[in-house]
């Protein structure tokens, strides 16, 4: 265990340089059925003005790790270990009061279901103005003006009148915009977007992704973008982190991960989505099986029950020994296959299938 931790921190970029740095993050929930190891040994960095895309299936720990960054977990049944540093400040050691000052101010979050995340009882304008008043001490009138300005920035027509509307009077895409306005009202340095486009139509999704990119260019916000859609990742992310069963299995630049994936799970994801311009006669290659339960994850590599390439690894290392996140062919991946094997599988089997 200790050797493993060492190897993982050794491959990580040096701490301190990044704006947000997460080191060996562990999140555990106590439940009636036992302890859920939701996030294990997660390490990543995010620079200012960059976007990190986190990909994974439901239950892979992608949302939980970001709730931990925001300090939004239930402290009664959650234990968090490791370190989270935002701009030099240790978030895990910070008091609730300090966190309250950061949330909505320095870091903000956008949720998937905007209707559930907005209060039906207050007007949109009031919900946008509230964090601004709290963090800057602005008056009601100033905050209202700010809310109108934010609504205009996110592209809501007639912001002067819409500011007094209630969430149910907005359409899905407009609610998502209102929530983005709410998150950005204090010009946060870090924006966590948890599947912000999953519930939206493609045309609206494209609008929201463009909006986030524009806003990022204007204000230099760092964004963590959580999604399961590799197409959206391609649109917005600079770096990509692929998570499986609570662990990072792959980390690298967007181009590296999407073009030269070095992990069987990444290959599976890439070959299981139909492409808009691929041949239609080739059947999709699904990943067999289902994601594991985090109550009782498989021994060794968590992906081994679904992996098609574990015979290539000598011995039973896949089922006994957890592969470390190590550098192979250009980016980090956690797999026992040798770099040469990965490269040959990638070029001989995966890439031809993708471009057929």
């Amino acid at each position, binding site marked *: 265990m200790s050797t493993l931790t060492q190897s993982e921190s050794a491959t990580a970029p040096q701490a301190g340089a990044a704006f947000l740095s997460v080191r060996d993050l562990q999140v555990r929930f106590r439940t009636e059925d036992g302890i859920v190891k939701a996030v294990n040994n997660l390490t990543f960095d995010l620079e200012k003005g960059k976007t990190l895309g986190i990909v994974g*299936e*439901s239950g892979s720990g992608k949302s939980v790790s970001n709730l931990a960054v925001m300090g939004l977990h239930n402290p009664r049944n959650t234990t968090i270990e490791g370190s989270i540093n935002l701009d030099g400040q240790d978030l895990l050691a910070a008091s609730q009061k300090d966190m309250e000052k950061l949330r909505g101010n320095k870091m903000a979050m956008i949720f998937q279901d905007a209707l559930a995340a907005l209060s039906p009882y207050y007007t949109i304008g009031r919900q946008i103005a509230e964090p601004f008043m709290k963090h800057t001490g602005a008056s009601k009138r100033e905050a209202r003006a700010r809310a109108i300005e934010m609504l205009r920035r996110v*592209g809501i*027509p007639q912001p002067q009148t819409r500011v007094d509307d209630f969430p149910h009077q907005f*359409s*899905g*895409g*407009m609610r998502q915009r209102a929530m983005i306005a709410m998150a950005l009202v204090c010009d946060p340095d870090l924006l966590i977007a948890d599947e912000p486009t999953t519930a939206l*139509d*493609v*045309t*609206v*999704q*494209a*609008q929201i*992704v*463009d909006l986030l990119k524009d806003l990022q260019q204007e204000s230099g916000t760092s964004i963590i973008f959580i999604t*399961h*859609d*590799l*197409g*959206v*990742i*391609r*649109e917005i992310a600079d770096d990509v982190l692929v998570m499986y069963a609570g662990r990072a299995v792959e980390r690298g630049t*967007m*181009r590296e991960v*999407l*073009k030269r994936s070095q992990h069987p799970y990444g290959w*599976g*994801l*890439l*070959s*299981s*989505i*139909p*492409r*808009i*311009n*691929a*041949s*239609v006669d080739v*059947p*999709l*290659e*699904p*990943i*067999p099986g*289902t*994601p594991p339960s985090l109550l009782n994850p498989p021994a060794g590599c968590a992906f081994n029950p679904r992996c098609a390439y574990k015979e290539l690894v000598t011995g039973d290392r896949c089922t006994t020994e957890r592969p470390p996140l190590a550098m192979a062919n250009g980016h980090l991946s956690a797999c026992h296959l040798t770099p040469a094997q990965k490269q040959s599988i990638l070029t001989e089997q995966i890439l031809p299938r*993708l*471009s057929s």
Partner: protein
Amino acid sequence: MSAEQTLSKSQGPATTPGQVLLEVDGLTKHFPVMGGFPFKRQVGAVQAVDNVSFTVSAGESLGLVGESGCGKSTTGRLVTRLYEPTAGSIRYNGLDISHAGRKELAPIRSEIQMIFQDPYSSLNPRHTVGTIITNPMEINGINPPGGRDARAKELLEIVGLNPEHFNRFPHEFSGGQRQRIGVARALSLNPKLIVADEPVSALDVSIQAQVVNLLQELQREMGIAFVFIAHDLSIVRHFSQRVAVMYLGKIVEIADRDSLYNRPRHPYTHALLSAAPDADPDNASQERIRLTGDVPSPLNPPSGCRFRTRCWKATEKCATEEPPLIQLSSSAPGHLTACHYPEDGITPAARKAAADALPEPRDAQD
């Protein structure tokens, strides 16, 4: 669209591929909106589906794509006659079922089955998997050789589940497995047409491909026709031979797969295609068409062309005159478009490829 159809009964000869199985003509569904006090009366109508016509041949898969609220699910439910149409006709195997009663529908119901989007709410939590699958057979009086239970186990195997799971309850299964149970239930009556309403959108990415492949195998091996409803353009393209694009209750474009995806004529189809995210970083980002705003309310749809409020080509004519769904010159046969100012039918990607004069094996195949 041959008008003469032999009125084959449900037990009649098997439909041959290419024969028109389902014929929908001018289908309309308006949901009344009630209001007023103290006496409720109709104050308006949600025009969910308006004058929609299409055909589905035996063994064929027709994809219905569009944004939420465009009426694609309502169309699916009208075809299965879960809703009563306001106007128009639905002919199944030559038989008009648009206003057929319970008794008339009974033999046809077993031939048109449905797969629902949400595998969590479409299975009765108090029934075992066995009951869920055998119930339709019992209701329709189907007695397969070897008994219903044996047939149910066989079906479980066909959809890739363990027959031993016969006595389990739905909550013991994952989302993908539940969707397979829904497929097995639909198959239990040997349907000729399955309406699949967003069958994979509630599933994880790695599971979606499993279900899509399963449905495709069934289509190929059993010759079942599909009406495949989805909002994901790439999945529809993968699954359906013909695709209809819907916008605000109307079909704006319908064509063969290759023709629609390679030579779309309607501006909305163009916008949809350019908004679909592509995971390949090397596919040069096409000039994306940014549609502004949202879909207007179907309660009070725009006059003339319903897309005109978001269309960059709209003129006076679009507001006053509704474009008919017609075959445009220089479109492939069977490619119908409803637009006054159609695009030249070349996607920006294809145009770029032509400009680069690079041999594109993909496009050549399509």
